[in-house]
């Protein structure tokens, strides 16, 4: 590290960086919640794609409302209910994940509430995407222009918070068929269907460039310390009670419309 960058990093809070490639999203979420609740340090977790296409709902997600359950069961798509809030996504190898887990005092001037944290994240990503597309935070989404490419969710405790993002570097259009149109949609979506509403980050920059730029932006606010994912400082406590769960086949089957509901739907 050069003398100038060393001097710059003095006094900045420490940020541990853990990088994965293709890690299962369930394991990533397990790690994040454990870091939130048992660590006192700041962490940035980056997962470059996930190995198996998986549906991920927010904490209050109901499969009957959010998913085409029959297709999900037929195609055996795993469904996870995560510990944070927010909506439903289907993630795969084309999804890039960046998560910040911070002490509330690590980011000066940011109160531990949804909107201030969201706003802080947008200033960081403004640096990442400077000169690329027309990036901004629109309601709670990251967009280029008026097309979404990044979705956010948070979990906030008394003294710490998680802000995690799934970036659509690429996606399979056919996977969207597993998801129903949610009841709550952002106003800026208007009446656009999925293909008109989202865009692919790969049309703007490479995966490597995105990760490099993100690490550089993090380095302007934190003193960055790369950590190996197998290191002992990364918790792997089998006794930790996770809130994130993988839904069972029985839970999904219970969400199927009943025979009479199916008949009523068919009548119309």
């Amino acid at each position, binding site marked *: 590290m050069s003398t100038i960058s060393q001097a710059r990093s003095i006094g900045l809070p420490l940020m541990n960086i853990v990088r994965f490639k293709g890690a299962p999203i369930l394991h990533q979420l397990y790690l994040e919640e454990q870091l939130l609740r048992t660590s006192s340090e700041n962490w940035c977790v980056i997962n470059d794609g996930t190995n198996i296409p998986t549906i991920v709902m927010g904490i209050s997600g109901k499969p009957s409302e959010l998913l085409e359950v029959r297709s999900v069961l037929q195609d055996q798509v795993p469904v996870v209910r995560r510990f944070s809030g927010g909506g439903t996504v289907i993630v795969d190898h084309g999804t890039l994940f960046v998560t910040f887990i911070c002490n509330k005092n690590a980011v000066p001037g940011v109160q531990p509430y949804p*909107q201030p944290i969201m706003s802080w994240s947008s200033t960081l990503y403004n640096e990442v995407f400077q000169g690329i597309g027309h990036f901004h935070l629109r309601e709670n989404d990251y967009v280029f222009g008026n097309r979404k490419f990044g979705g956010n969710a948070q979990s906030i405790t008394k003294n710490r918070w998680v802000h995690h993002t799934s970036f659509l570097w690429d996606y399979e259009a056919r996977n969207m068929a597993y998801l129903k149109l949610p009841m709550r949609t952002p106003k800026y979506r208007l009446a656009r269907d999925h293909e008109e509403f989202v865009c692919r980050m790969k049309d703007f920059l490479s995966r490597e460039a995105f990760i490099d730029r993100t690490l550089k932006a993090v380095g302007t606010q934190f003193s960055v310390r790369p950590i190996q994912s197998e290191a002992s400082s990364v918790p792997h406590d089998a006794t930790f009670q996770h809130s994130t769960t993988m839904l069972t086949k029985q839970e999904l089957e219970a969400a199927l419309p009943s025979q009479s509901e199916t008949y009523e739907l068919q009548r119309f």
Partner: protein
Amino acid sequence: MALRMWASSTANALRISCTAKASLSPAFSLSRCFSTVLDGLKYASSHEWVKHEGSVATIGITDHAQDHLGEVVFVELPEPGGSVSKGGSFGAVESVKATSDVNSPISGEIVEVNSKLSETPGLINSSPYEDGWMIKVKPSSPSELESLMGPKEYTKFCEEEDAAH
């Protein structure tokens, strides 16, 4: 919600009670803070309130908290019969894209949980001190209430917290 907050801060300035109950009234003028703070309650630095009446203490989140969280869409609450510890999390609220822990200001046994919140989580926004109550607890250490903030202290705490950010 904005109209209600304007009305409550105006009422504060005029020393008029904002609530139907005579025992609960806005404590004092909140010229810089637009959230309601009620007399007769105790407050935690994590923005929960406690109302101690006889052997039962009712707990919820403050107007300041609900305003900063945004529209509450889901509430996760414990079962009656469980216990809470001072400063420990007993549940969570979901608003916008976030889940936020709710912490208990005191220790004790949970004797009742507000079941209306599962169908109408927005009560936390519209009525944080009344219909939006979350749990009722039988305090195990009533002296814990003494270490909580009163209305004046809590109002100053909110103002300082907002000013610092």
